[in-house]
């Protein structure tokens, strides 16, 4: 979700097989660069595989180019990595969120074969995708300050996951501002 010179990215923490919950501390987002995060939803094995592949590519880029990925470049990298497997895709839907070098918000949601959708407002993926889009449409408004953005994204993800029985069990929110990254874990329903 984008705000005024800030972006926020949030995910729940559940990892489960059908109705069985296996973990409540499953990381679904990782910090790609100082001001960019990648969040991946979908099949856990692919989420982890891709996180490692992206981490590898990000590190290689940093070493080769002696600079960090811009969010838009990162999104293109993610997109082409997914499209390479057009006919045998990873079962994932990633989101790239961050601030570019001028601290403008950048948000990009992708489907499983790398069709990227740049949004000026918000992007959502995962099992409660429809619920997320519904709450986003209602609660989001332009030019939110970091603290307001935190509240909006937190309420959005909590409302949506409360109506999806296979997600929830805790949530993490990162708010990226030009000065700092604020990370908070939310108190949520645990059922």
């Amino acid at each position, binding site marked *: 979700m984008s705000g005024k010179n800030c972006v926020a990215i949030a995910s729940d923490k559940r990892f489960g097989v059908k109705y069985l919950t296996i973990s409540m501390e499953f990381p679904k987002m990782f910090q790609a660069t100082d001001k960019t995060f990648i969040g991946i939803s979908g099949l856990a094995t692919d989420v982890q595989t891709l996180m490692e592949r992206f981490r590898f590519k990000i590190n290689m880029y940093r070493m080769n180019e002696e600079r960090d990925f811009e969010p838009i470049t990162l999104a293109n990298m993610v997109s082409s990595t997914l499209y390479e497997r057009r006919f045998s895709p990873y079962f994932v839907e990633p989101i790239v969120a961050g601030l570019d070098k001028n601290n403008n918000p950048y948000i990009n949601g992708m489907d499983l074969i*790398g069709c990227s959708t740049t949004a000026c407002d918000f992007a959502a993926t995962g099992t409660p995708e429809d619920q997320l889009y519904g709450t986003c449409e209602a609660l989001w408004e332009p030019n939110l300050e970091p603290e307001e953005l935190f509240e909006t994204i937190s309420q959005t993800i909590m409302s949506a996951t409360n109506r999806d029985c296979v997600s929830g069990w805790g949530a993490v929110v990162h708010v990226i501002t030009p000065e700092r990254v604020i990370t908070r874990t939310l108190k949520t329903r645990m059922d």
Partner: protein
Amino acid sequence: MVSRVDVPKGGFNFDNYQRNLILQEKGFSLPKPTKTGTTIVGTKFKNGVVLGADTRATGDTTVMDKNCFKIHYLAPNIYGCGAGTAADTDKITKMVASQLELHRLATGRESRVATALTALTQFLFRYQGHLGAALVLGGVDVDGPHLFSVSPHGSTDKLPYLCQGSGSLAAISIFESQWRENMERDEAIELVKEAIKAGIFNDMGSGSSVDVAVIEKGRAEVCRGMEVPYPTIQKVDSYKFKPGTTAILSESFRNFVTITEGDAMDIS
């Protein structure tokens, strides 16, 4: 495990194919790729080509993107509207655009529409319709204005006006009743807008606003959101939450440190 040397070989990777088949057999359903249930049109006019597209992208019945851009750049004088699987139209046009750019640099000549057409058709034919990309290709080159359509299986059609996508039936009706030969630029733009609007209103897969590209000899103009038939109704009041609304369990900060370069080190 990530291989230590990750050198891209080029082409598609089929490593997960067997695994995905097994997963699907076991009832793990594949997430739906984003499609552009689309209305895209193109028409020739007196001295150029007008292309038009709606801006809705859908995943199943969910609107994935309310303002996506379906008029893809291929060369400064050639554009192509894409319908079908969004990732395919996106990537194929990007690939062909880069091929054309390299070709221009090698030959020092303006790209021809036929070159773009051949590259697209041969690529799509090679994949036997598995790449779900349908395109309306338009441009102006040394031979004048050209308009083609390309189907996912790699067949082409050459017509003075064309429609594709799920809204093409609505759009073609506008052209069939109102199209004339040798239209003026403004007339052609108006007709394209009407055709796209017919798609937006009558086809559920098409929506949002009208994008238009006008290509004439030596000049191409792309107009994003030329018409927005139904702008989103803005909220009258605000839903902002007071800071502290959400209960949190833990909090951490990662402050960025700004490094100001000092004087240059004396290395004499």
